[in-house]
C-alpha cells in the first residue's frame, strides 16, 4: 500500500483515539491547576459514557445523551469536590472511590435497566454523533496530497472530535487570558495568596472541579455515542489514567497536553493497526506485546524523557487557614 495512504489512515485513527484523551486531560488540567488532584477522571468518563448511552437510547437523541453524560460527570465531580475541598479529605482516596463506584454501578444499573449483560442496547443513528463532512470534502478528494489530507484526515470526524481540538486553544485562553484562569492557576500554587486577595478559595476550586466534570462528561459521551454505538462495561479501559499520564507528560500546559495525547493516541493506533503484521528484521510481534506497547512506552517516557515535571505546588492539599 502507498506509504502516504498508510500515513493518512494512521493519522486519522490517531485523531479518533486521541479525542477522549484530550478531553479528559484538559479536564484534569483545570482541576489540577486549581490544586485538586483528580484520579477519578476514569470513573467520571465511564459514568458519563453510561449515562449518555442510556439517555440517548431512551430519548433517541444524541444531544440529550451528551447532556446527561455531562450532568452525571459534573455530579461526580461535585462529590469529589465535597469530599476533598469542603471536607478536606484525601483527594486520592476520593478519586479512587469514584472510580470503583462507577465501575460497579454502571454494570448493575445497565443490567437492571437493559438486561444485556451490562451493555446498553445498540444506538440508532439518531442516538449517535455521526461523522461530519467538512465543506467541499468530496470535491477536493481527488486533488493530489492536499485532497487526502483535507478529505481523508481533517474531514469525517465526529462533532465532539472537533470540539475536543477546539478546547485546547480555548482552555489555554481561559487559563492564561481571563481573570478566572489567573485565579485558578494561583489557587493551585498558593491558596493563601488568593485568600488574602479577598477571593474565596473554596468557590474557586469548586468552579475548577465543575469545569473538569463538563470536559470529562464530553469525553465519556464521545466514547459511547461517537466512537462506539453504545456502552459496554469498562469501556474507558484506562483512558482516564492515560490522560493523567499525558497531563504530567505535558507538564500541566494546554498545548503540551495536545501533543502528549496525540502521541499516546498514535501509539494506540499503531498498535491496533500493526498487531498482526510481520516487521522486517523482527518478524511477527506477539499481539500482546503490541497491545502493551503504548503502556510500556508511557512508562519509559514518564520515567526518562520528560525531565522534571513540577506539579502545581498546592496540589493535593486541602486549604486550611493557619491554626
Amino acid at each position, binding site marked *: 500500500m502507498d506509504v502516504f495512504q498508510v500515513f493518512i489512515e494512521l493519522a486519522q485513527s490517531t485523531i479518533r483515539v486521541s479525542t477522549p484523551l484530550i478531553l479528559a486531560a484538559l479536564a484534569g488540567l483545570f482541576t489540577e491547576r486549581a490544586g485538586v488532584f483528580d484520579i477519578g477522571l476514569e470513573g467520571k468518563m465511564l459514568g458519563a459514557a453510561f449515562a449518555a448511552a442510556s439517555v440517548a437510547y431512551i430519548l433517541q437523541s444524541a444531544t440529550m445523551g451528551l447532556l446527561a453524560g455531562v450532568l452525571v460527570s459534573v455530579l461526580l465531580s461535585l462529590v469529589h469536590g465535597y469530599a476533598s475541598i469542603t471536607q478536606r479529605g484525601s483527594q486520592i482516596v476520593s478519586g479512587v472511590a469514584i472510580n470503583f463506584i462507577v465501575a460497579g454501578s454502571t454494570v448493575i444499573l445497565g443490567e437492571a435497566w437493559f438486561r444485556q449483560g451490562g451493555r446498553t442496547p445498540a444506538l440508532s443513528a439518531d442516538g449517535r454523533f455521526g461523522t461530519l463532512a467538512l465543506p467541499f470534502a468530496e470535491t477536493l478528494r481527488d486533488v493530489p496530497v492536499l485532497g487526502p489530507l483535507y478529505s481523508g484526515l481533517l474531514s469525517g470526524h465526529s462533532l465532539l472530535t472537533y470540539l475536543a481540538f477546539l478546547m485546547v486553544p480555548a482552555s489555554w485562553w481561559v487559563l*492564561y*487570558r*481571563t*481573570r*478566572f*484562569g*489567573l*485565579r485558578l*492557576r*494561583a489557587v493551585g*500554587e*498558593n491558596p*493563601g*495568596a*488568593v*485568600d*488574602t*486577595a*479577598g*477571593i474565596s478559595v473554596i468557590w474557586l476550586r469548586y468552579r475548577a472541579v465543575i469545569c473538569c466534570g463538563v470536559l470529562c462528561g464530553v469525553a465519556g459521551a464521545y466514547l459511547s455515542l461517537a466512537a462506539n454505538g453504545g456502552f459496554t462495561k469498562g469501556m474507558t479501559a484506562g483512558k482516564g489514567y492515560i490522560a493523567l499520564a499525558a497531563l504530567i507528560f505535558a507538564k500541566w500546559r494546554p498545548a503540551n497536553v495536545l501533543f502528549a495525547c496525540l502521541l499516546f493516541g498514535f501509539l494506540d493506533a499503531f498498535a491496533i493497526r500493526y498487531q498482526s503484521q510481520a516487521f522486517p528484521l523482527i518478524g511477527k510481534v506477539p499481539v500482546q506485546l503490541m497491545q502493551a506497547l503504548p503502556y510500556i512506552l508511557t512508562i519509559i517516557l514518564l520515567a526518562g524523557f520528560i525531565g522534571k515535571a513540577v506539579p502545581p*505546588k498546592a496540589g493535593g492539599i486541602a486549604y486550611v*487557614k493557619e*491554626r
Partner: protein
Amino acid sequence: MSELAIELKGIDKSFGVVHANRTIDLKVRKGTIHGIVGENGAGKSTLMSILYGFYQADRGDILIDGRKRDIRDPNAAIAAGIGMVHQHFMLVENFTVLENIMLGAEESQFLNAGIAKARAELRRLERDYALEVDPDAVIGELPVGLQQRVEILKALYRGADILILDEPTGVLTPAEADHLFRILEQLKTEGKTVVFITHKLREIMAITDEVSVMRRGKMVATRRTAETSVEELAELMVGRRVLLRVDKKDATPGDTKLSVRDLTVRDSRGVTMVDGVSFDIRAGEIVGIAGVAGNGQSELLETIAGMRRAASGTVTLSGRTIDVCGAADPSELRRRGLAHVPEDRHHAGLVLQFTESENAILGYHGDPKYRSGLLLDTQAIRAEAEAKIAAYDIRPPDPRLKTANFSGGNQQKIVLAREMERDPQVLIIGQPTRGVDVGAIEFIHRRIIEMRDQGKAVLLVSVELDEIRALSDRILVMFAGRIAGERTPAASEGEIGLLMAGVEDGGEAAQ
C-alpha cells in the same frame, strides 16, 4: 494629637481553649509608624489577622479613620484601605510580579484590559515610593527583599492607606532590612500609616514613632518610642526583668580542640562557597563567625558537622583528623565528641511530626541506654526527656506532644538540650536564637556561656552581630567564603561591619 487611623476597642478572640486576644484596645495615629512587640504567641499576629479580616473577633469594635467598620473578610479590609504584608509572603512563585499584583484586583473578566492599566499604576507607585521592581520578573527568581517589595506594592496597588507588616525583617539580610526601613519612612512622609509587628526591639527603636507591647494575649502598654528604652520594652514583653547583656568571665582557653586548615567547599553547582578557611578553637572559648548570610558560613558549619563534603582541606577534632573530603559522616563525628545545633532546626534539627521525646534522642537513638533489646526503651527515653524539659524549661512540659506544636524558642531548646547534654568536646551552633523570644534568648545565651565555662570549644555562627559580639571571645568575619579578618568583641560594630562588607585588612586575615 492628630487623628486616629486605627482604633480597636475591646477586641477578644479565642481559638478553642487558647485565649489569643483578651479585650484589646489599640490606637494608631495617622501618618505614623506604630510598632507592636511581643513574644511569639503573645497574640500580635492574631490581632493583625482580625484587623485584616482573616479571622473574626468574638467581641469588640474596629474603627478605621474614626468610622466603625465591620471587617468580615480581607475584601472588607482592602475596601477600608488596609493592606497587609504577611510574614510568609502570599505570592504565587511561578507568576510574574505583574500577575501577582493584579491577582484579585484584575478590573475585568479579561486580563488584557487590565494589564496596561496595571503597568501604568505600577510605574506611578515605583516613582512615588522608590519601589523599583521589574514587573515581568518571575517571583520565584527574585531575592526575598524584592519579593517583600512586591507584597508592599500589592497593598499600595489596592489603595492601602494603612499598611500592616508582620515580622517583615525575619527573612531579610541587614542591608535588605535597612532598605525596607527607608521605604517605610518614605511611606510615612506620603501620609501612610504603618503598623510594624516584630519581636526585635532594635527595629522598634530604629523606626517607630510609638510602640505597643503585647504579652500573653493582652495589650500591656503603649509608649512613645522616644520616651522608652530597649530594657523597658523587654521587661514589658516578658513580664520580668531581662538581662540583655550577657555577663561572662574572661575565657581561660586550654588545648586546641578543633582545627580547620585550608578548608575549601563547593556547592552542587560547583561554586566555591568556602575558600581556604583556617582557624583553631581551643577548649573553653567561644569563636564567633560573623557575616552577612550567604557568605559561606552555612557551608562551613555543615562541612565541619559532616553534612557536606569538602573539596579540600583538613579538619582535626581533639587531635584526630577527620576525613572531611570523603567518608566523614555526622554520626562518626558525634561519637568523637562533636555536637551540632544546625542553623535551620526545621530542616536539619528536628522531625516536627515526631514527639518531643523522640526528637530529644534523634541521632543518638542507637545509644544502648535508650535501647532494651531490639526495641527502644520508651521509659528511659521518656524519663530523660522529662529531665531535659525540667532543666531547659521547655514549655509545655509534655514529652508526648508533637514537636510542631512547640513554639520556635521551645523547639530550639529541644535541640540545644539534646546536643548540650551529650557532654561534647566541641559544640558547633548555627543561629542559636533565630525566631526565638527575648526570654528564651537570655536562657540560651546563658547556656552557651556555661558550656564554655565547662571547657567546651564552641563555634558560633550567627547573622545577628549583637549576638556574636555578646557571646564570642574571638570574632572571625566571613566574606565571600574567606575569613576577612579577626577581631575581639571589643571591636566597634562599625569596624566589624566593614569587614562584613568585604573591606579586608591584610594583617589579621586567615593564618
